[in-house]
C-alpha cells in the first residue's frame, strides 16, 4: 500500500482550480480508480503521469463527466471546479462539459465539416451566440490554438485535409471556442510526431495564462516540459485500482521524489 500524501494547497479558501477528493471509479464491478485526490491550481498546467492502465484517463473523464457515458460506469467521491460540485444533481452534464473542455488522444475533428465549422460547432450547439459573431469566435479560438495563420485562407476546406498535428490543434481550438475555464487533455500528443508534439506543447504553455490545464501523459519529458505540477499514479498489480502516489511541483516530483515508487518511475527503472 502506498501512503496517502497530504496535498499542497488544500486549504478551504482556495476554491479556484480543480480539486478531486476521494474519487473512486468503476467500470461495472471493476474498480479502476481508488481514493484519488488532486488539486490542480487555477491557470497552471498539471500533469498526470503513470504507467498504462493506472487510471489517469479515467480520472480525467470523471472531471467532465464523460466517464458516466460508458454503460455500467460509476463514480464516487467529489470533483469540484471553482468551488462548484461538478456532480451536483441540479447541474447538467452538458453545461459541465462546456465549462470543462476536453482534448482527446487521437485528433477527432468532425470529418463531414470544414475547418471553420469544426472550430465553431460547440458555439453553434450551445445556441447562445448570434451568427454574426461566429467568424470572430473562430478566429480567436484558432489563433489561441496557434492554427489561424495556417488555415485562414482555407477555412472552408474539410477539416480532415489538415495534417495530424494541425487536426489536434483544431480540436484544441474547437474546445477553446466554447470558452471553458478548464481544459483536460488526454495524451494529446501520443498520435503525433515530435515536431507536431513540440507545437502542441508550446501552445499548452501559451494558453496556460488563460486556462487551467490538466494533461495526462505517459511521456515524462513532456510532463517536465509543460507542467507546473505533477501527480504520479500507479497500480500495484494488474487488475488493482489506480491510486495517486505522489503529487507536487513538477520540479520536485522529477528532482526530489519522496516516494520510492515515484523515484523508480521517473528515473525510468520501472513503467
Amino acid at each position, binding site marked *: 500500500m502506498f501512503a496517502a500524501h497530504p496535498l499542497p494547497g488544500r486549504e478551504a479558501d482556495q476554491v479556484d482550480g480543480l480539486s478531486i477528493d476521494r474519487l473512486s471509479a468503476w467500470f461495472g464491478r471493476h474498480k479502476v480508480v481508488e481514493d484519488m485526490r488532486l488539486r490542480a491550481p487555477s491557470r497552471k498546467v498539471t500533469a498526470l503521469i503513470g504507467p498504462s492502465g493506472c487510471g489517469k484517463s479515467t480520472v480525467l473523464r470523471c472531471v*467532465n463527466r*464523460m466517464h458516466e*457515458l460508458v*454503460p455500467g460506469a460509476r463514480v464516487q467521491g467529489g470533483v469540484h471546479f471553482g468551488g462548484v460540485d461538478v456532480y451536483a444533481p441540479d447541474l447538467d452534464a*452538458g*453545461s*459541465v*462539459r*462546456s465549462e470543462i*473542455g*476536453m482534448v*482527446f488522444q*487521437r485528433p*477527432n*475533428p*468532425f*470529418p*463531414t*465539416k*470544414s475547418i*471553420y*465549422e469544426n472550430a465553431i*460547432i*460547440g458555439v453553434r*450547439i*450551445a445556441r447562445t451566440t448570434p451568427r454574426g459573431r461566429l467568424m470572430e469566435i473562430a478566429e480567436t479560438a484558432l489563433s489561441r490554438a496557434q492554427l489561424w495563420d495556417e488555415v485562414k485562407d482555407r477555412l*472552408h476546406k*474539410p477539416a480532415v485535409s489538415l495534417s495530424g498535428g494541425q487536426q489536434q490543434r483544431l*480540436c484544441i481550438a*474547437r*474546445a477553446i471556442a*466554447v470558452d471553458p475555464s478548464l481544459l483536460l487533455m488526454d495524451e494529446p500528443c501520443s498520435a503525433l510526431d515530435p515536431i507536431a508534439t513540440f507545437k502542441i506543447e508550446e501552445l499548452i504553455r501559451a494558453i496556460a495564462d488563460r486556462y487551467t490545464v490538466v494533461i495526462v501523459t505517459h511521456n515524462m519529458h513532456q510532463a517536465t516540459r509543460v507542467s507546473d505540477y505533477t501527480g504520479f499514479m500507479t497500480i500495484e498489480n494488474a487488475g488493482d485500482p489506480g491510486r495517486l502516489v505522489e503529487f507536487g511541483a513538477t520540479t520536485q516530483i522529477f528532482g526530489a521524489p519522496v516516494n520510492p515508487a515515484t523515484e523508480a518511475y521517473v528515473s525510468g527503472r520501472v513503467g
Partner: protein
Amino acid sequence: MTDVALPAARFRQRPALRRRRTKNAVMTALLLVAVALALGALAWVLVYVGIRGFSVISPSFLTHNPPGNPAAPGGGFFNGIAGSLIVVGIATGIAVPLGVGAAIYVVEYGRGRLRGAIRFFNDVLIGIPTIVTGAFVYAVWVTRFGFSGFAGSIALAVVMLPLVARTTEEMLRLVPTELREGSLALGATRSQTVLRICLPTALPGIITGGMLAVARAMGETAPLLLTVLGNDLFTQLNPLHRMETLSLQIFSNAVTGYEQAQARGWAGALTLIAIVLILTAVARFFGRRVQVENV
C-alpha cells in the same frame, strides 16, 4: 555454424517457401474465378437485357401506354413507369424515416432487451417472403379499402423498412466513438450529437442502403399483385386507385405469349434497370454534395 552454404542456396532449399508460393497462387486463382463468375453473371444479365430491350425501346416507349391489342407492335409502358415511381416514392417516404429512426434508437439510445427485440424482429422481417407481406396487406388493408397504389406502397414499405433499418444501423455503428465523444465533450446533448455528427457522417452509407431498398422495391412484383393489382392499358396517377407498375407490367406482358408484348417486357426490364441506376447515381451525387459543403 558448420553449414557454409551460400545464403541464396539456403533460401532455395526451404520447402516451406515454395509450398506457400503455390498455395498463394492457387488461392489467388480461386478468388479470381469467384470474381469472374459473380461479375460475369451480372454482366450477362445486363448485356442480355440491354440487347433485348434496346431493339424495342424508344422515346415513345416512355411516353405511351401499351396498345389495346397485346399482339400489336409499338406502344410503351408510360403508365407502369409513372405508377412505379409513385408507388415506390410513397413507400420510400414511409420506410426511410421509420427505418432510420429505428436504427438511431437501436444504435444511439437502445439498451438491453428492447434493443435486442427490435434487432431480432428486424431480421425476421428481412426474411419474410414478400408474397406473404402482400397477402398481409391484402388481408388488413385491401379487404377494407380495395386495391390501390397506396396499398402497394404500404406493402413495399414493409419490405423496405428492415433493409433501411439494418443498413442505417450498420452505418451508424461505423461512426467512430471518438466523434460522439468529441461532440458530447463540447456540451452537446445526445440528440444534437446524432443530428449534427452521427447522421451526417453516416449519410453516404445510409443513402446507399436506402437506394438498395428502393431498387429492391422497384423490382418487387409479388406483393403488388395482391395490392396494386395492375392496370395495363390506362394511365392512373392517383394512388388511391388501382394502378400499374413497371414490375407488374413486365410480368403481365411477358406471360401473354405474344411476341410484341414480350418485346415490350424486355424494354420494360431495361427501363427498370436504368431507373434504378439513375436514381442511385443522383442520390450519391447529392449525398456527396451535402457532405463536402454543408457550410
